[in-house]
């Protein structure tokens, strides 16, 4: 982890860390707004779209799947925020975390898939994608493990950066 102490480093790096940090925080603020908007939208959909409409007992499979999709979206948004939080405060990006978030997002989409209207090639493509992401996670972890073993042995790791 390439943690640069303080912000006021000499030369071109002056202020970059502050800039980065505040950009992250502003972005997180906007994502938080989006999250609140999604939550309120879900509540609105549930209360007005179903209770007030009188269609409560005609709740179809599509409605349920739509709501479930929104619920799962909340979790994905929170995960993204958490990753950004780590980037803003600890100055590190966990690539493997991002890969895992991608797997979570795809899995969430698969949970609310409507299999009646999808093509088989789409399913096969999603499968290949999930497999590739899983393999990528495995390989990234493997590489990190080997470079950390090198560190323990006192050797210089190949690269030392924030990822």
């Amino acid at each position, binding site marked *: 982890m390439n943690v640069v102490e303080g912000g006021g480093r000499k030369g071109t790096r002056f202020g970059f860390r502050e800039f980065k940090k505040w950009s992250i925080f502003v972005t997180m603020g906007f994502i938080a707004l989006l999250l609140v908007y999604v939550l309120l939208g*879900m509540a609105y959909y549930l209360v007005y779209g179903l209770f007030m409409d009188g269609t409560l007992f005609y*709740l179809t499979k599509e409605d349920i799947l739509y*709501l479930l999709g929104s619920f799962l979206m909340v979790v994905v948004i*929170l995960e993204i925020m958490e990753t950004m*939080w780590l980037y803003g405060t600890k100055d590190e990006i966990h690539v493997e975390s991002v890969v895992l978030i991608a797997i979570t997002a795809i899995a969430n989409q698969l949970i609310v*898939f409507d299999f009646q209207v999808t093509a088989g090639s789409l399913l096969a493509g999603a499968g290949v994608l999930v497999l590739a992401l899983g393999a990528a996670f*495995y390989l990234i972890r493997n590489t990190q*493990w080997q470079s950390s073993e090198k560190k323990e042995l006192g050797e210089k790791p190949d690269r030392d950066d924030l990822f």
Partner: protein
Amino acid sequence: VHDYFRLLKKWSIYFTMVLVSIVLLIMLAILVFYVIDLITGNNFFIEGKADILYILGLFLLVVVILEIMETMYIYATKEEIHVGAVVLIAITAISRELIVFDYEHVAGALLAGAGILIASLATAYYLILRAHREFPGEREDHIK
């Protein structure tokens, strides 16, 4: 700022869980009414198969929703997401669809695609868990 973030996280999860449980209650109520309707109806034996598959599908959907709630609960309390669990839920959801599939009216390509999908999900699950076991990371992570 960190406290605000954690508060936001916790409360959005709880809010979502409340909404999910409302949906779950509605679904259970619908299920009960549907079963009663089916039993008291005159044409119980005539349109049997499609109705039974529909009810079965709703039951399995209840299970999927409960699993999602459990994942959310773990996320809210222990602040960690287990990706393996999410992948397993996806497998459950797809299997649910396959159980209530109307096999007479689907193309073979769709089935092949679903098969590839399930195989890859299982492999991804294996790879994730194996990566955790063989190469435990030296840093704490919120998403596992």
